[in-house]
């Protein structure tokens, strides 16, 4: 019998021993966190869910390598980051292609959204879709670093641990990604007025 209140570390030890009940408790505990992180990168809930499942499969398979002195969240975040980066690599878009496919209408909506103006629901949805496509043109690791730091509120050190990188490398990636975003955002008005 597995205690619902058992610590993550003790549950992970049981998972490593092949206990499915312990694994179920961990999935229930962390499911939303992992799914919501994946949703930052994949707009379709099915895609985000698929990534979340891959994360838990990996967690199950590698339970024996978990060191209990580190919080499970860090371990999970690391697996989730790797899974997201791998999936983003498969679906990375070419920037020129995305920019050239922007319709004047959608470009104008996005331009207004980026100026802080309020949009109608349908326009806002189109602007979000377009923004997501533009983000998909960033190198996956750069995008991940930016999302983890600027949206998830992780420090550079925490992101470094999650991505298997160094704090300095994370800062450089964040700076590069922000510069790329500024460049993309600057090019939109011309597209919008086309």
């Amino acid at each position: 019998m597995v205690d619902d209140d058992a610590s993550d570390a003790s549950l992970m030890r049981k998972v490593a021993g092949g206990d499915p009940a312990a694994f179920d408790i961990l999935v229930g505990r962390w499911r939303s966190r992992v799914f919501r992180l994946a949703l930052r990168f994949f707009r379709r809930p099915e895609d985000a869910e698929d990534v979340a499942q891959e994360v838990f499969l990996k967690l199950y398979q590698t339970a024996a390598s978990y060191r209990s002195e580190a919080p499970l969240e860090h371990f999970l975040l690391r697996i989730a980051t790797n899974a997201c980066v791998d999936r983003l690599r498969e679906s990375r878009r070419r920037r020129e292609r995305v920019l050239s496919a922007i319709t004047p209408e959608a470009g104008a909506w996005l331009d207004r959204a980026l100026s802080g103006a309020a949009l109608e629901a349908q326009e806002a949805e189109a602007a979000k879709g377009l923004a997501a496509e533009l983000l998909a043109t960033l190198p996956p690791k750069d995008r991940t670093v930016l999302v983890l730091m600027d949206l998830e509120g992780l420090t550079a050190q925490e992101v470094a641990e999650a991505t298997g990188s160094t704090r300095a490398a994370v800062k450089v990636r964040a700076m590069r990604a922000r510069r790329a975003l500024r460049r993309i955002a600057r090019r939109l008005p011309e597209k919008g007025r086309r």
Partner: protein
Amino acid sequence: MNCKECRDELRRPGAAVPSAEALRHAASCPACAAESRAALLLRLGSARDDGAEPRPGFEERLRRRLASGPAPSGSPAWNGGFERLVRPALAVAATLALMCAGLYMRTASEPGADLVSLVESDPMFTSLLAGDPGSIFGEEQGAGETAETP
């Protein structure tokens, strides 16, 4: 609000949109305006419902995938070892291999570039073997003799 406060506000996690004050500052500062547009692009493209949950049956689907996949193993998920050690080592090894290949190609393309041919053909070695160190220092054959003459 100054530029630093504005940028901190733009990068503050959790806020769906920057505050009106930050947007007002960005409207009057071109650098912060560019930063604001980039921050909004990131927020817009990564927007999600904060209360989003996986579809019902998530655990059931996961269990099915688990049943068809491999059992737990001791292989580490932390692939930082690869990033931190193996990858740089591979890069160094590849660079060394390229340098060696380059050197080999260079020396192989020069006929008689091996050490034996060098000793046989280089004037410096020839003069050394002949017991004439003067030619190493670029002296004329007769110059030394002249200097020794009172």
